[in-house]
């Protein structure tokens, strides 16, 4: 099917827009939204690898986010390490956790995996809340004043914006490349029909594990970025259900299993969330959840392919009409 606008041109335009955004909109308010958008896009794109492409729905992905968030701050508070050094630590922990969860559950039907992710995320959240070493219910803090660039403690959002943008670019590139190779084909085959995939020699369990590990890596990185930027983490902001839900809804709203779906989702949801917080005020989080819940149900019921899929169908329809005329 031919697209009205060549994909390559579209991607270049998108990249240009993202690069120029904080320079054109230099007010702190806009930059803040920009950073929030990027963070949401990174988390959702990371989730997308295992949840969208492979079809293994994790609703507890915050476990990787939280580990990635705690690691740099823990390394800083315990040993004075720059948070930057803690990022790989978080990744190692997350990948280990991914394998531990994946190994038993990927033998079984998809529901087991989903349930396991909820249970483990909750388990870790409660546990961290009671563990003094990681700050218990209070959590951990990062450097108040930067000792050097490696502390990644900047004033203003500009530096964070470009760091996050770089990570997003890397993640999308990796997802794109992986999607084109055998691994990507195997993921889509597993999502479509595991039984058929098996009969063609696809190593289903191993492929799912790899997808989860890759997803965990980037989710952990997202958590690390979050912790480094806000300079603070606690069990709820790290492992809470809101974190998991947001990843899922951003990806699903935009289009799970597509490369740019999560970006579309973030583009819509972050401004929506900011607006909701302003309207509903401080007690907003409850209403935000109601909204999220409603959106998720509607997507599941009417548009499981997300807005991207809707857009593709509408665009194809318009294209056909325009050419029939």
């Amino acid at each position, binding site marked *: 099917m031919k697209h009205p606008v060549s994909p390559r041109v579209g991607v270049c335009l998108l990249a240009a827009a993202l690069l120029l955004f904080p320079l054109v909109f230099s007010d702190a308010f806009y930059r803040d939204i920009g950073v929030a958008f990027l963070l949401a896009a990174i988390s959702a794109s990371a989730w997308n690898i295992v949840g969208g492409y492979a079809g293994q729905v994790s609703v507890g992905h915050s476990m990787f986010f939280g580990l990635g968030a705690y690691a740099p701050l823990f390394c800083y508070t315990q040993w004075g390490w720059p948070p930057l050094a803690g990022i790989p630590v978080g990744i190692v922990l997350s990948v280990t956790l991914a394998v531990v969860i994946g190994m038993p559950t990927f033998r079984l039907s998809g529901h087991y995996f989903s349930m396991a992710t909820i249970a483990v995320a909750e388990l870790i959240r409660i546990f961290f809340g009671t563990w003094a070493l990681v700050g218990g219910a209070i959590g951990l803090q990062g450097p108040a004043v930067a000792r050097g660039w490696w502390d990644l403690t900047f004033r203003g959002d500009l530096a964070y914006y470009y760091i996050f943008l770089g990570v997003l670019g890397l993640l999308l590139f990796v997802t794109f490349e992986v999607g084109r190779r*055998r691994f990507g*084909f195997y993921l*889509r085959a597993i999502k*479509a029909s595991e*039984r058929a995939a098996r*009969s*063609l020699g696809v190593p289903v369990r191993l492929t799912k594990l790899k997808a989860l590990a890759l997803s965990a890596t980037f989710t952990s990185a997202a958590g690390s970025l979050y912790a480094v930027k806000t300079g603070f983490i606690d069990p709820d902001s790290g492992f809470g259900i809101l974190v998991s839900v947001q990843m899922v809804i951003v990806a699903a709203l935009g289009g799970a*299993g597509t490369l740019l779906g999560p970006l579309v989702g973030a583009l819509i949801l972050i401004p929506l969330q900011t607006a909701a917080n302003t309207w509903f005020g401080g007690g907003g989080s409850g209403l935000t959840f109601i909204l999220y819940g409603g959106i998720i149900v509607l997507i599941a019921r009417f548009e499981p392919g997300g807005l991207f899929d809707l857009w593709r169908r509408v665009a194809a329809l318009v294209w056909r009409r325009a050419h029939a005329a």
Partner: protein
Amino acid sequence: MLLEAHDVAKAFGSFWAVAGADLTVEEGEIVGLIGPNGAGKSTFFNCLAGDTLPTSGRILFDGTDLTRATPEGHARAGIGRTFQVPMTFEDMTVLDNVMVGAFLRHPHRSDAREHARRIVELTGLRPDQPGRSLGTPGRKRLGIARVLATEPRLLLLDEALAGLTPTELREAIALVRRIHETGVTIVIVEHIMEVIMTLTRRVLVFNQGKVIASGTPEQVVKDEAVIEAYLGRGARHA
């Protein structure tokens, strides 16, 4: 001897779907597997394909014991199978569907794509057609193309020719013959007698979990036990 099944049995609870079945297939043969519904041939077939774990018995492929091997293991060893209900990868094109199979022996994308393209041509499908837009005959053919891409030495066809019009049936039979001519050994489960008579040289008849007759199609069709199995006692003397 390419495939040997010795005394294979499969129980579901206290019900023995397969109660001691033997099978030998030489390289290069086309063997048919027929029997009334509920006779256990599908379960036996799934045991051969690695989808079901036999309760007892042994399955050997080219000397290697594959009794407990996974479906992936079967594919890697060189056994391919189709499904009665074709499980097309709906969101992928025909070519992409076949590439999934091709990747087994061709890990690199360009090799896999080339190999897949050749197979798609061989089976007469259009490479860029979305999987979900295919009708049943197309899906069945795609199922065959997909598994062919894994370069099997033995192909297990599970009612791959059911639900086709007479023209489609003739084309499908020709396709299976072409595949056979490239050197692939075939075991075909089928209800349609035309397929069995024209394609196979040897037929096994299943009933109540066991092989009750074997021979050429002509012999088997006249066998008393076979007639009784299909039509019941009393039909023998009809």
